């Protein structure tokens, strides 16, 4: 098993933290190898920034993402800059309110209202955690238990409960979306057979 994950967004959205949480869960809970590189610098003042993560059950010899299995975009500029990194049939996950135009790709695309959901929960800055919940449920790159403990350990003290609620919200949405897709595919298949 080897997964290359690229998370992009704006400085301040918690992109780096999101990558770190994923990596910690993979290493500490799932006992996998993980490497994590972050790009910051001028991006920290706004503009595209990214977190690059490789999770593997074998040793990782090169730490940069070259062909992302999973690309998570939380801003339009992040999407524009990194969309070519997504490999053929890779999974694209975007914040649907932040990334307005998405060109068709060969793999699965998941639009997620992560920022809106975080706002509904009371804190816009939790959008990254909502997104992590979603990534956990649709990609199976890391385990749910690992992510729950990793999120609880990584967020500021006293905010564990709200952050876990945000995580679960994203996780539930992911499950619901997968279910919706299978159900719709089954219904389509059925109507095709009947027709």
């Amino acid at each position, binding site marked *: 098993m080897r997964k290359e994950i690229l998370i992009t967004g704006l400085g301040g959205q918690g992109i780096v933290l999101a990558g770190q949480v994923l990596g910690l869960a993979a290493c500490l809970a799932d006992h996998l190898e993980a490497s994590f590189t972050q790009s910051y610098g001028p991006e920290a003042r706004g503009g595209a920034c990214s977190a690059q993560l490789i999770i593997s059950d074998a040793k990782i010899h090169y730490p940069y993402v070259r062909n992302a299995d999973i690309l998570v975009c939380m801003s339009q500029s992040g999407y524009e800059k990194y969309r070519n990194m997504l490999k053929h049939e890779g999974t694209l996950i975007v914040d649907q309110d932040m990334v307005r135009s998405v060109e068709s790709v060969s793999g699965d695309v998941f639009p997620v209202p992560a920022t809106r959901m975080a706002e509904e929960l009371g804190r816009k800055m939790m959008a990254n955690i909502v997104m992590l919940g979603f990534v956990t449920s649709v990609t199976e790159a890391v385990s749910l238990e690992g992510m729950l403990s990793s999120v609880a350990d990584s967020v500021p003290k006293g905010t564990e409960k709200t952050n876990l609620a945000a995580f679960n919200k994203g996780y*539930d*949405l992911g*499950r*619901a*979306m997968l*279910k*919706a*897709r299978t159900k*719709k595919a089954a219904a389509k298949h059925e109507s095709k057979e009947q027709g």
Partner: protein
Amino acid sequence: MNDDLKIVLFLCNWSPHAAYQTLQDSLAPLPVEIRMIRIPCSGRITKSLLFKAFETGADGVVLLGCEAGACRYGIGTRVAQRNIDDTRGILNLLGLGEQRLGFESFNPDQHQELLAYLTAFRNRIGELGKTPVVAAGRAEVSLSARSADEISRAHNVYVCQDCGKCSSACPLALTGKQFSPRAIANAAAAGDLDSPAIREDIWSCLTCGLCYDRCPSAVSFPDFIKDMRCATPANAKMNAHEGFFHSLMRAMTSPGLPVRHWEGLPSDIQTDPESKILFFGGCAPYFDTFFKNHLGISTSETLFDALRLMNFFDIRPSILQNERCCGHDLLWSGDRENFIRLARLNVEMISDMGVEELVTACPECYRAFSRDYPENGIKTGFKVSHIFELAEAEIGKGAVGFKKLNRKITFQDPCRLSRTEEGVQLPRNLLKRLKVADFTEMRDHGASSLCCGNCAWTGCDSYSKAMQVNRLKQARQTGANLLVTACPKCRIHLTCAMEDPFLENEIRMEMMDLTSLLAKTIEWE
């Protein structure tokens, strides 16, 4: 030995009685188990009279009338046939079996045939055996000054400031009925137990709770009324439908009754006997059977749609074939003893199934299980949820949408939900998710919404009807063409009001339960 069998024979005074008399005169061997009651016409024996015999322990009941064309009053035999059909339906649901109810017509000269029929009926009942119904009856009580004082104290009646906000909000009083919650509270506080306010009016109250909502002293009037009814001798003349439903509920307290509540379950619905989630249906199948000829109502659809909605979310709940009434209406019409019997029976059966969560689509079942059971010392040990709570939680997870429905809707709140903040909000959150052409509230809505006119099958009169007409006019004024309800009783009562031949065009409206509306339009996005 079947000597202790009890068979009640309702015998029409005309043709069959003449035949019966011939048998008596010739000392024919009439079965000794048969107890004959002479009646003016078979059409006068209502469903409630037929069923009352079973409630009080009859093993079999026979109704004998004249040939359809020979009825002295024209329509008696036809009416009798309808009543028999409906009552047989109820007997089947209860697992008593329709064979226990005989119906036949005889001409005056058919005494041999009559003897053969009665003997065969006795033998049939002998084969079926004793009825599993144990006559429960309502305990004899009389209201003492002490019990009235205790009840008044428990529900803060003594802190009444006599301001009259209750009476000015009471929907019954506003309809013009000589009824005042304030006068009842005053009479109780003064210990005037013989006043009509206590003897009569406590049976008219709708227990809708609007007065409690408005009371500045928090006099818990509905609970006061409930306890007063339990402490007062029954007032049979206030029973709607001649007490049929009270009889039905009391009959259901018999543990040995092999109830077949879910017999009509459509085959597309998936259930799982191992599931830790139980769907509790409520009395809808009985309502549909009882009102079949009168209103042609189908409240069972709500139960099926609730199950379909759960199936949509991949929840396959268990169901309880031997399900009994929750007992809400027994408690609220003053029969606490039998309410507790029903409650114990339900909780015992449900606990035996290892259920962790009970889901219901009926606001009265919801209230009974979540509040009335614990308040009467019955611990449930499982979580009680309304189907709306479950739906809201599941839909909240996302990826679910609703098909467009080109209807303008308005909403009738059920009293047993709408007197709490969550109960007002819960259906509205769901209503706002629907993709309908328009949703407009009625003038009185939410916490101020009006009762559908009746509660606990008690005290239906012309004022109830007037209330229902007012309510339906409010609904029509919103410009809606679909009235969304959330309680089977609201649908029954409002449908009944729509039968008014003079006002029909002003008040008729299509109705649909919110559960059905959700189940019919929900889709994966």
